[in-house]
């Protein structure tokens, strides 16, 4: 627990450790071999594990996922890399129709332990096709699990848990955090369990639910509110499907107010489901409407002027928290 790693190094370490632990784990994707991946997540793996466990593939996202499924059916645990999460649209059918349904239509007699790693998110000057946050499409698909770590600790711990999980997991790693998030990581066999949120800050006045790169500005906004006498509890979902409803409800018991913050666009982003579930199950506990701070319904633009307009940030979150606290 003493070692400090970057989020990216944490991912690399998780891969290396799991590959050492279990010979059935292997990685595949574009440029993941000797090159070490577009972001370096697989650096050193090819040298250590060789051609057959660190596979450079052709530019064939659908096949990358399909091949992973085939290998998983024979007991392997493939970790497929999409070079950018944006390109997951090209492997979409294999994920939502092949992987997500397999156990169900096999009558429960098989499972698909694959992980699809997908570098997502903006604020890195990536423009329309190198900044997307495609998590909602997969949260809408029963049979999948969806993960989105915000810290180096979770990046490692959740990836290890995802690799060991017997279900198809889509693992969104946020590009903005790769080198910016740093911290201790779990040691040895420790994992961060899927489906369990983390409370990043305690508070009795407002519950803020978020994940990924939005955790830091959320905490900053919470600190500002604290100076104004409002204590915000910040919940980092970590797993988006299944999401930790109980953690939200527990916090809500104290606060009666919920703000949801995500970088994905508003309409049918995960915030919609969280809000709807709170509505259905905790309506009487609410003293104010559940609010959302999200990107507007548009595409991620390149120009920093435009991207800044879209992205939620500390100021926008602070404003929303104030409105919510004052409601």
């Amino acid at each position, binding site marked *: 627990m003493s070692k400090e790693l970057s989020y990216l190094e944490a991912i690399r370490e998780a891969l290396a450790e799991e590959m050492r632990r279990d010979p059935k784990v*292997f990685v595949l994707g574009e440029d993941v071999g000797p090159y070490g991946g577009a972001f370096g997540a697989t650096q050193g793996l090819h040298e250590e594990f060789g051609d*057959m*466990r660190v596979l450079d*593939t*052709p530019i*064939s996202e*659908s*096949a990358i*996922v*399909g*091949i*992973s*499924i*085939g*290998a*998983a*059916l*024979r*007991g*392997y645990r*493939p970790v497929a890399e999409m070079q950018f999460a944006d390109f997951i649209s090209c492997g979409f*059918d*294999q994920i939502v*129709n*092949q992987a997500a*349904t*397999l*156990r*169900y*239509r*096999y*009558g*429960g*007699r*098989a*499972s698909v*332990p694959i992980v699809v790693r997908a570098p997502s998110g903006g604020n890195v000057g990536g423009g329309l096709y190198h900044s997307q946050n495609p998590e909602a499409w997969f949260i809408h698909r*029963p*049979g999948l*699990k969806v993960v989105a770590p915000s810290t180096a600790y979770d990046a490692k711990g959740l990836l290890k848990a995802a690799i060991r*999980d*017997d*279900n198809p997991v889509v693992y969104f790693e946020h590009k903005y955090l790769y080198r910016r998030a740093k911290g201790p990581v779990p040691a040895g066999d420790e994992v961060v369990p899927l489906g369990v949120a983390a409370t990043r800050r305690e508070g009795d006045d407002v519950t803020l639910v978020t994940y990924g790169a939005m955790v830091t500005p959320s905490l900053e906004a919470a600190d500002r509110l604290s100076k104004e006498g409002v204590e915000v509890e910040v919940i980092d979902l970590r797993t988006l499907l299944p999401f930790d409803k109980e953690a939200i409800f527990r916090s809500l018991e104290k606060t009666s107010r919920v703000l949801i913050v995500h970088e994905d666009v508003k309409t049918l982003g995960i915030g919609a489901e969280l809000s709807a579930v709170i509505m259905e199950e905790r309506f009487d506990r609410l003293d104010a409407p559940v609010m959302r701070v999200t990107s507007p319904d548009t595409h991620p633009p390149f120009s920093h002027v435009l991207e800044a307009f879209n992205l939620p940030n500390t100021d926008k979150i602070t404003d929303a928290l104030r409105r919510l606290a004052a409601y």
Partner: protein
Amino acid sequence: MPPIKRTKFKLSPEQLLEMFYWLKLIRAFDERLSVLVKQGRVRSGVYTGVGQEAIIVGTCFGLRKEDYICPLHRDLGSFLMKGVEARVMMAQMFAKRTGLSKGRDSALHSGVSELGIFGNTSMLGANLPVAAGLALTFKMEKADHVVIAYFGEGASNTGDFHEALNFAGVQQLPVIFICENNQYAYSVPIEKSMAIDDVADRARGYGFDGVAINGNDVLAVYQATLGALKRARGGDGPTLIECKTYRWHGHSEHDKAFYRTDEELAMWKSRDPIPTFTTYLRARHVLDDKTLNDTESRVAATIDDAVEFAINSADPSPQDAISDLYA
């Protein structure tokens, strides 16, 4: 590389009779299904392979238990030959709890890993990347097992076909791609869906051999498969075998197939694989009236038993609608 079409083989009388049994059983299964649809006892879309049986029998006959098959919608017979009981397949078509998918799907969208059977989605071509993934694990294990992947000529126009065959080629995987070219994709004749005569020609674009053969000749199919099996087991990579054939029934049992002529159907019926093989067996004195009768009774008994089993099987329980989603 060993030639595909001229591989030498020798089959014992018992083996030849077994082939004959399978041809008859698969034909009878499909024809019974067709009747059951007309009677309204099987409610689902049923896609029979009547007329195409020689392909299944010729390709499956030389397989080991460890070899894998990746069937598409007309390949019910390959489930039988790989070891699924006829009654289980029939229960599957009746959507009973005793079927492969516990009633969740009535078509061939379920598999049996222990028997080396992959169950695809409905998405044509989507089985091919999975086939490559299965074959990749055989290569990793340096095992000399093989994957057989089926697809129609129509499915060879999907993106997944291309991505899968390219990957299989570059990795030299032990997989045999079997094209069942039955001249039509639903209503669309091959000349409206591709500008080539032989799907086999596509193999060249992936760096391996493709051969076009008479798919209604079980021995020709067997021979070509043997050659491809030898190649694949010996580490010499994939082969594409295009089997020219014809489906007698409509695309599904509900399709009246007005898009083709009676003459065309009559011509292809005259190329029925079963009489051809019967003549061969008689000429070689392997089949006499008694063995013929025995085979036919065995087949009838198996099918009757299967239908009875399916009819008497229980429906799934309602809760099965929401179970088996996650491992």
